[in-house]
């Protein structure tokens, strides 16, 4: 196992889109172990994406089982080639990023997701997730498209009740 170096803004590589994983071998699994070790070494990160450590492959880790107030979760998840097949609802929440030190901002994300992915051996996985876990996955999947949460930050004042009225009726938010 080894700690990997996290790319930080304004590193241009963070804008690079990642490629699908095609080979599910020991090298992949060993990389995933390193990625998880790197996530755990950071300041309370609930997720990490491979491109954040300069590996431009569609691999994300999400684990929200350790929040201050417990939230619905699937525990530790490694999702290879993840795809959101359905999303619903929206909600504002505060985000930060290992690649953007010392900055947090409000982002609107879908609240309910259906997700297809593969595990580190290539087996097909399907999940339904909601709330904070769904938010974490959308944040990590943005990294796979070369997108950061700072590209989605909305004004603090947006949160005053109006926004909900304004957005009512829209089904999908975001491009994940």
């Amino acid at each position, binding site marked *: 196992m080894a700690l990997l170096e996290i790319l930080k803004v304004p590193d241009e590589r963070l804008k690079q889109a990642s490629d699908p994983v095609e080979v599910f071998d020991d090298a992949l699994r060993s990389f995933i172990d390193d990625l998880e070790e790197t996530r755990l070494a950071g300041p309370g990160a609930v997720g990490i*994406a491979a491109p954040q450590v300069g590996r431009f492959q569609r691999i994300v880790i999400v684990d929200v089982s350790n929040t201050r107030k417990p939230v619905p979760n699937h525990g530790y998840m490694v999702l290879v080639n993840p795809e959101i097949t359905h999303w619903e609802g929206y909600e504002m*929440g*505060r985000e930060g990023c290992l690649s953007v030190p*010392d900055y947090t901002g409000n982002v609107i994300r879908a609240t309910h997701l259906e997700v297809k992915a593969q595990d580190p051996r290539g087996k097909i996985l399907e999940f339904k997730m909601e709330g*904070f876990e769904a*938010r974490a996955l959308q944040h990590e999947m943005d990294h796979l498209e070369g997108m950061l949460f700072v590209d989605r930050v909305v004004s603090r004042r947006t949160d005053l009740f109006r926004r909900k009225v304004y957005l009512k009726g829209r089904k999908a938010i975001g491009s994940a």
Partner: protein
Amino acid sequence: MNNWKMLTLVGEDRPGIVAKVTEALYRNGWNLGEASMIRLGANFSIMMMVTGEGDAEQILAPVASELKLHLHVDKITGGLHQHRVPNIQVRVLGADRAGIVAQVAGALLNVGFNILELESDVAGSSDKPVYIMNIEGYTDAALEQVENAVSTLGDIDVAVSPIETLIG
């Protein structure tokens, strides 16, 4: 760059204030740090952390006078990277009356709640105004303690919720 000044500009809102003020600073070699502009009523206000050589007040005097803005320059000690992340959000909604903010803020202070962000607005109609306030802050107290503290405020709705900041 640790010689920060806080620059405050207040006045009637009109287009071009930010462009003209920052242009004057830039032309004189000043740099910006954190800044926050807001429009309240028809009024403009901005606070900017700035750093540079010379007298910021002198540099901005012509622009301030042209745009009829009050200008304040204060020497400050805090620099960049002093962010504090809120962990509790408090939303307030009620028929507008005197004392709402004072009562809510007082109740929050009693549980060691440090207000980091506050925004309020008056909605509704002029004969039935509704006061809306959104507060974010930090406290080590439990969520339930904060809820209890604001539960006695009677005619106003106060909703307390945790803010879980996602790092990923």
